[in-house]
């Protein structure tokens, strides 16, 4: 961290006090933690008042879940607050839900502090953060050809995007992927961001159904 750069202002949303204090301890050296919240209402009020740069958003929250928070803030349409979803759940419909509500990435709570700090920095700079598991979800949800599609560009992954996601799912970092696929790190970023956009905007019917099915099994 450069001393002259303004510190990223971080807001923590999680209903477990213990987990929040754990995050605080891990992250406060590098980030300025401006506030925290334990439920949807507190979170919406706090974020609206404090305009943090990044919100670390628990997927499961009393009062509607992380997706509700991201939705409510997006509807206010002010500020540049970005969301990074974090969860122990891994329930596909929750993860897809919070991403579609506007979160820029998803990491599991078992992530190492270094990786988490890295993910926060990445989200702060506008990039997308895909954990291996999220990459797996997306590959799963976008599997197969569509017989008919309203917007083929939105509803399909390109072979390159698929390749990048596969590497993320296998556990490679963006940098390693760049080396392996002979791409610049920036290009890898671009692919990932484009996948995020598809994930958020695709009307692909399978996306919802897939999440539901995965839950039903």
């Amino acid at each position, binding site marked *: 961290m450069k001393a002259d750069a303004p510190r990223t202002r971080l807001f923590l949303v999680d209903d477990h006090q213990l987990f929040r204090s754990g995050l605080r301890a891990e992250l406060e050296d590098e980030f300025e933690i401006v506030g925290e919240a334990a439920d949807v209402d507190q979170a919406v009020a706090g974020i609206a008042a404090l305009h943090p740069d990044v919100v670390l958003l628990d997927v499961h929250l009393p009062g509607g879940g992380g997706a509700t928070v991201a939705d409510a803030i997006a509807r206010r349409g002010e500020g540049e607050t970005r969301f990074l979803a974090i969860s*122990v759940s*891994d*329930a596909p419909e929750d993860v897809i839900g919070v991403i579609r509500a506007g979160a820029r990435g998803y990491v599991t709570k*078992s992530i190492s502090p270094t990786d988490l700090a890295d993910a926060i920095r990445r989200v702060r700079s506008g990039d997308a953060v895909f954990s*291996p*598991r999220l*990459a*797996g979800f997306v*590959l*799963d949800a976008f*599997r197969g050809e569509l017989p008919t599609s309203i917007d083929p560009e939105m509803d399909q992954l390109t072979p390159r995007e698929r390749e990048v996601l*596969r590497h993320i*799912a*296998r*556990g*490679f970092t963006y940098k390693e992927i760049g080396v392996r696929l002979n791409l610049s790190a920036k290009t890898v970023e671009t692919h990932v961001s484009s996948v995020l956009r598809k994930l958020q905007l695709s009307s692909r019917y399978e996306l919802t159904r897939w999440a539901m099915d*995965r*839950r*039903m*099994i």
Partner: protein
Amino acid sequence: MLTGTLGGLAEALGLDPLLVRLSFAVLTAAGGTGIVLYLVLWALSAEPDASAPALPVGQRPRNRQIAAVACIVAGSMLFLRGAGIWFGDAVAWPVALAAAGSALIWARTDAADRQRWARISERLPGNPVVMVFGSRVSPLRIAGGALLIAAGMAIFLVANQALASARTALLAVLVTAAGLGIILGPWILRLTRDAGEERRQRIRSEERAEIAAHLHDSVLHTLALIQRSEDPADVAALARRQERELRAWLDHRPTPSAQQDLRGAVDALASRVEQLHHVTVDTVVVGDAPVSEHVEALLLACQEAAINAARHSGAPRVSIYVEADTDSISAYVRDEGRGFDPDAVPADRRGIAHSVIGRMRRHGGSATITSQPGKGTEVHLELPRSAS
């Protein structure tokens, strides 16, 4: 009751549904007008808008409300009678009387009343009047209502004496049964509802018991082990295994040991490796496939590769990625450990060669090992779907 039309009308008017229904029943006795009105309303009514807040229905129909509706109905009846739309005094007036009586008795229960009914089973041996009607319905109202119903029945019987005498007995039975139905019908209906409620409660408590049993066998057991364990790596492995199990259970997946789908099988093998060697195994599975003999072989090779990574790489974390595509199943086992030079592996250390590469070949697949000293290792397994 049939289409919800009357209930909807009652809601729209803020009236008690029972009153509205009775009014229509009475008007039906007057030349079938009630049925015609009902059909017209049904045709005109819109689907209820769920988002629109319902007007609160009066907690108890106020006497004034009852009187007003009664006046409207009576007036309509007189008008219809004058206009000649009429089944005859012998039918219409008794029905009207009986309706008034049942309105008096069965004036709608509010929420508190329903709770009282939910407790009815505790009361069964008690006073039958209290039991059936609840203590808050005054005896006077019950008596008055019963009187009106009885009067309606009597008039009906007397007025129909002119009918063939053979039918009189049958008619008497029918009318008595109808009277009993009016008096006891709602009670029976409510008892049935209570039974349903009781069943739901029982199912709920059974579910709770099952959850408790599961938590006891799994989570509590693991917590006990964790408390006794000294080694942090042990604790982490225990926690990981428990987490995996709990998650599978929450997702309604069968336990890994009885698992036949790819996802569950991969989770199970990851869990085994975590237990045997103190590493974290991350799994990502895309797509699904039945676990055939060949897929089983791929999974065993996968497990062997993961165990190798756990033993020799020195990395705390092993990633397994399995993708079932339409024409092949591929698996990647990767670590970021110390790596090695695959060409420099002495011939006597055949673990990998035999159990991974050999096994894959025997089942029509292939295995590639990519490693470099200091840069981790990745084992790539590939199995054509035609072989599986």
